[in-house]
């Protein structure tokens, strides 16, 4: 039973004049954990941001299937998509506490002006228990270690109770315990039928942690199940091949 959660077609994205993603076509499987693998500057984060509508592509489109058989644009299913940015993307000296950050995950459901209520608070506390951070709930966020920060971000995504989870390098600079907690939760999500997409940098752990893999280097080098696609040849091709898109454009 293979269902597609996200369908990406002919996606080309450029920063100013430089194309970063070149005609990316992908089907992300529903209820699976998909790793996006590729060298630095391969456009992994850009791909995530394009899926989230944070960047306007030159061409191509991204469609989502949250309910069976219905295809929609990002805008109409926004609430069903949770995003965990790189933890370096925010200022951790911001004057707020752990519980507050997690409650922010409810803001999307609340919409404009409505304040979080008891239910939202309870849910945030529940998810903090899940990521093993409940005893830290009143801590100022600057006091957390890298792994703890990442777990707080994951809890913020969990309270969104989404169908699709996009994580940008959640294991970068994270301790062993946090890595274990994060990956167990992602497995739990996918067994509950949620779709999990992770930008991943550690080739050693792909087989252990993921079902599907996408090799990306400006374009899709290969995509498929880890069992069949995660091979020496493809890894080498992804990291070796000169994928300078600018040259490809010249050839056209």
């Amino acid at each position, binding site marked *: 039973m293979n269902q597609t959660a996200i369908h990406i077609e002919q996606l080309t994205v450029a920063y100013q004049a430089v194309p970063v993603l070149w005609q990316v076509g992908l089907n992300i499987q529903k209820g699976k954990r998909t790793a996006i693998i590729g060298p630095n500057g391969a456009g992994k984060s850009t791909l995530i941001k394009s899926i*989230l509508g*944070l960047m306007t592509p030159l061409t191509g489109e991204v469609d989502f299937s949250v309910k069976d058989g219905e295809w929609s644009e990002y805008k109409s299913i*926004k*609430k069903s*998509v949770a*995003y965990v*940015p790189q933890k370096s*993307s*925010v*200022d951790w000296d*911001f*004057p*707020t*506490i752990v519980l507050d*950050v997690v409650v*922010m995950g409810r*803001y*999307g459901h*609340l*919409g*404009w*002006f409505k*304040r*979080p209520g008891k239910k939202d608070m309870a849910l945030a506390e529940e998810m903090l228990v899940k990521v093993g951070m409940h005893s830290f709930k009143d801590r*100022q966020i600057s006091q957390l270690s890298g792994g703890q920060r990442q777990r707080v971000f994951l809890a*913020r995504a969990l309270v969104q109770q989404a169908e699709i989870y996009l994580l940008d390098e959640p294991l970068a600079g994270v301790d062993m315990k946090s890595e274990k907690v994060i990956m167990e939760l992602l497995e739990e999500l996918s067994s509950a039928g949620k779709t999990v997409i992770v930008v991943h940098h550690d080739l050693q752990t792909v087989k252990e942690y993921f079902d599907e893999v996408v090799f990306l280097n400006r374009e899709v080098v290969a995509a498929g199940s880890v069992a069949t696609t995660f091979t020496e040849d493809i890894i080498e091709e992804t990291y070796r091949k000169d994928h300078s898109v600018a040259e490809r454009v010249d050839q056209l």
Partner: protein
Amino acid sequence: MIEQLTSLLSDYTFQLVALGTGFLGLLSGVIGTYATLRKESLLGDALSHAALPGIAIGFLFIGRKEWIVLMIGAAVSGLFATFLIQWMSRKNVVKFDSALSLILSSFFGLGLVLLTYIQDQPNANQAGLDNFIYGQASSMLLSDVRMISIIGIVLLVLVGVFWKEFKVFTFDPVFAQTAGFSSSILQFLLSTMMVLVIILGLESVGVILMSALVIGPSVAARQWTDRLSGVMGLAGVFGFFSGVIGTILSSLGKQIPTGPTIVLVMSVFVVFSLFFAPNRGLIRKYISQKKQQQMYKKQMEGKKEGKEYAG
């Protein structure tokens, strides 16, 4: 001295002015908290300096000091300058810091040239226009205080209404966008609020020092608390007292502009907070660092001795 102070404090005009600058300081502290947390303090600096030519041009247009016209002039030229700075650094024409100091000083220079030109004109209406440089709160009228209060209350209500939205946008703008809060709307609101506060303060604090009043209170407040509401409230309190005490000091002396005294009082708050705050203060940090070092030293010595005995 004491007599002078009591007669000053019971003076109606003084009370009015002190109330005006106090409320202005409160607003600067509250709204400025967003600017410092978003690391946009320098843009506030550019905005206020660059307001000067707008004030002068506004005056040249109508030939008298019509508050609303001067303020519109100030807003337009301040916003135009910040737009230029952001555009220059985004297009990689020059780096952000160079663009900032270039635009800030050239706009300010233009403002000074225009003001000097106006002062040479045989137009009696121009008297007091140079107050905009260093600020002169004593020129504040009841109508000015009323204006500050009305705009101020609107701004405070906006902060309350958009509390959750401003908070998430200030902490993590990308996440706020994915949660469905339009960053262009929030960005626009926050910038407009910032511009309004700076403009309100131009006459009493002056274009040179207004940005300090926007930045300072929240920097001091951040030292004492780890909650956004706490920082904002305390910044408001620091701002309020900077305004009131600064106005008292400026009125006691002869012809001291209010801007500098207000900012000096605020600097006292900042310096005190940086040194003496209970958890984040420099003194506390120094002591705990020393303690830590002592502890390591002892441990090392203990090990050394142990080794010597063993050897």
